[in-house]
């Protein structure tokens, strides 16, 4: 597969022949090895054959899945015991028969191959992204919970006592059930007894 959308500068830096045969041999899809060396090299040569560079891709999306003829690589085979452990953790039903188990194992093997490709990316010094947020200084300032944010709650408290001062939050004796008066949680219950959800905890359930 030709990757004509690859940035030109990246391709120049790589300075590797772009043949399909090399696609699966590429260890690192996005490594940035020796830019200075390459730049000086191309600067020396002055002339870069762009056509030649772009003629062969260095990386194929096919590398993310195991090749159909590939031998099981350095990764260990998944055992049936591990598969069952994972299914239990995810609360998924166990496979019905050996054929289904085999299918699950091979699917899992290709998924793990994909994950290994992801893990092969060099991320030293890179903090994992947890979610997309405004991480600028202003954004963090906006998110800071300081005195003004809590002022409402602080105002709701009272100080009891003149000699032995204590802070006490006045407690609501009766719950104002009207906050969620519009919906009755029990309407989502498959089984209920009175005002309770019911679960059958027996082994045979």
């Amino acid at each position, binding site marked *: 597969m030709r990757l004509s959308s690859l940035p030109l500068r990246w391709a120049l830096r790589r300075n590797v022949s772009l043949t399909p045969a090399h696609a699966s041999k590429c260890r690192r899809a996005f490594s940035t090895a020796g830019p200075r060396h390459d730049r000086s090299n191309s600067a020396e040569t002055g002339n870069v054959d762009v056509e030649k560079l772009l003629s062969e891709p260095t990386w194929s999306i096919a590398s993310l899945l195991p090749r159909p003829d590939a031998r099981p690589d350095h990764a260990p085979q998944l055992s049936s015991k591990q598969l069952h452990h994972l299914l239990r953790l995810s*609360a998924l039903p166990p496979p019905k028969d050996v054929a289904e188990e085999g299918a699950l194992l091979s699917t899992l093997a290709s998924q793990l191959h994909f994950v290994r490709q992801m893990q092969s990316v060099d991320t030293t010094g890179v903090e994992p992204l*947890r979610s997309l947020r405004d991480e600028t200084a202003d954004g963090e300032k906006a998110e800071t919970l300081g005195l003004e944010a809590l002022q409402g709650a602080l105002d709701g408290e009272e100080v009891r006592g003149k*000699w032995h001062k204590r*802070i006490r939050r006045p407690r*609501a004796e009766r719950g104002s059930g009207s906050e969620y008066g519009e919906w009755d949680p029990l309407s989502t219950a498959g089984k209920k007894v009175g005002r*309770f959800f019911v679960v059958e905890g027996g082994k045979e359930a």
Partner: protein
Amino acid sequence: MSNVTLRLAPATLTRGLSRITSPTGRIPRPCIVSKWLQSRNLTVVAAPIQEAIPLRKHLKDEAKRKRAEAKSNGGTKPHAKDSRLKKWELTVGIEIHAELNTACKLFSSASAEGTDGVANTRVASFDAALPGAQPHFQVATLLPALRAAIALDCKVQGKSGWDRKHYFHWDQPNGYQITQYYEPFAKDGVLRLHASDGVPLADLNGAESIEIGIKQIQMEQDTAKTTHHRPSTYHIDYSRAGHPLIEIITLPHVHSPQTAAAVVRKIQMVLRSVDACVTGMELGGLRADVNVSVRERGTEGTGSSYSGVSGLGQRTEIKNLSSFKAVEDAIVAERGRQIDVLEAGGVIEGETRGWTLGATETTRLRGKEGEVDYRYMPDADLPPLVIGQDLVEHLRSTLPELPSETVERVRNLYGLSLKDAKTVFDLDDGDRLEFMEETIESVQRKLGRTDIDQLEIGKLVSNWIIHELGGLLTTTELNWESMNVTPGELADVLVNLHNKHITARVAKQLLSTLIETPASARSSVEQLIDDGKLRLRPLSEEQYQAFAAQIMDDNPEMVVAVREKGQKGKIMWFVGQMVRRGEEGTVEPEKAREVFDKLLVV
């Protein structure tokens, strides 16, 4: 799988209390409903299984235990148990989960209080895990959490995160609990304990106090309430699901069961004093898990370490201890079991164990192979928790007095004994102490003289408030809120007593009258004294002598007992007779005693 918390749901009045048993034979915690019913003066069918031990009784028991310990230390009998303990050293780490005192839940705006006894009413869509429901951090829950962290001397982290702890259980509808595993909001605190907190002398090692390190405090969600109905049906109430909890994790610096119980007790007191957690252990608002390991003294155990403390033995965890006594007993039992296994040449496995009240050994809940893989991961729905330093400083400067500070202040200012000081500050949520201080100030003002020792007044007032007033409240079965004696009125009574206008007996009567009179029919203390002709009309010396002689003539056998058999105690009997037979407000017991001493010794 996960820890199953079996608790009673508050049932409505129309539904009877269901008989609760559990598969592991654990006795559940005391019924919240029975206490609710009791406070409304309705009859209770089943008494609570586990009573909250009043502080004063606990202090008495502690004193008794210390005396027994001192006696046994002085004794020469070598105890087999003591020699085992000399060889093996115990190490305990404690994890406490405490319910925060907030209006809303942690990640939803459903109310966190006021059940009305009806189940499944305070449930938001996120608490019921409706698909697509998102968590929204309720900012007001930070206040009690921060106060708890500051009171325990922790460093509040400016930035902390929310993580998911995955496991499947019917009381965790989302399939994960939102907690702070990677970055808790407070770290590195310290808790100081003194001998008066219940720490045995052996642990103090000659120092005045010991410091228990607090590794971290984190905020997390509570699970739903489950009730077990035979044989395998569970009723679930999601009103509690999502309630904010803090988990306080101590370092393994505790080396005896009594210290462990003292740590839990002290933490509960500290949290209550800063209004962070107001429901105690006996109501299920605070629960403790302990990690117990033993090692031979002077060795490195199995080389295990936890959080920087190394050279420990293999630890086991005991979950869901629901009272201070349970903490102590469970640790004693587990220590004994571990020593037995190690002395027999076995190895301790790292397992999770449970404890039931009245048992002699912990029971195994799950072993290492049953260990759950929680697959912790940061929660992507929630932004990191960024706490402003100005808020922390404000809370630190306005933090209420901590229990140890209050006790010290009360002892220094008013001369109370340690036991009295500890009792009074804990009574009625601090209102009794407030009343006492107001009364002392009032008495001082009314007496007008500045030469009177505040300590003397303090002792007088505190005795009356703790013992007399307390006794009257018990006999009339009133609670503090409905008691209508004002500090001014009590001050009047005590001023009259101090000036010897009335006797102590009359003062007690006045107090009793005041308590029983409704507010509408109130008259002032002075008026009551005048109306009842209670003012002391002191007898002269001759009158005392004559009266005493009369009583002695009426009871020659008692006279003989004192004079010849030397039963000095019977003199008080004579005093009592004089007080009883004399007119109200005439006989002063102290004077009577003097007279009898003179007459009888001759």
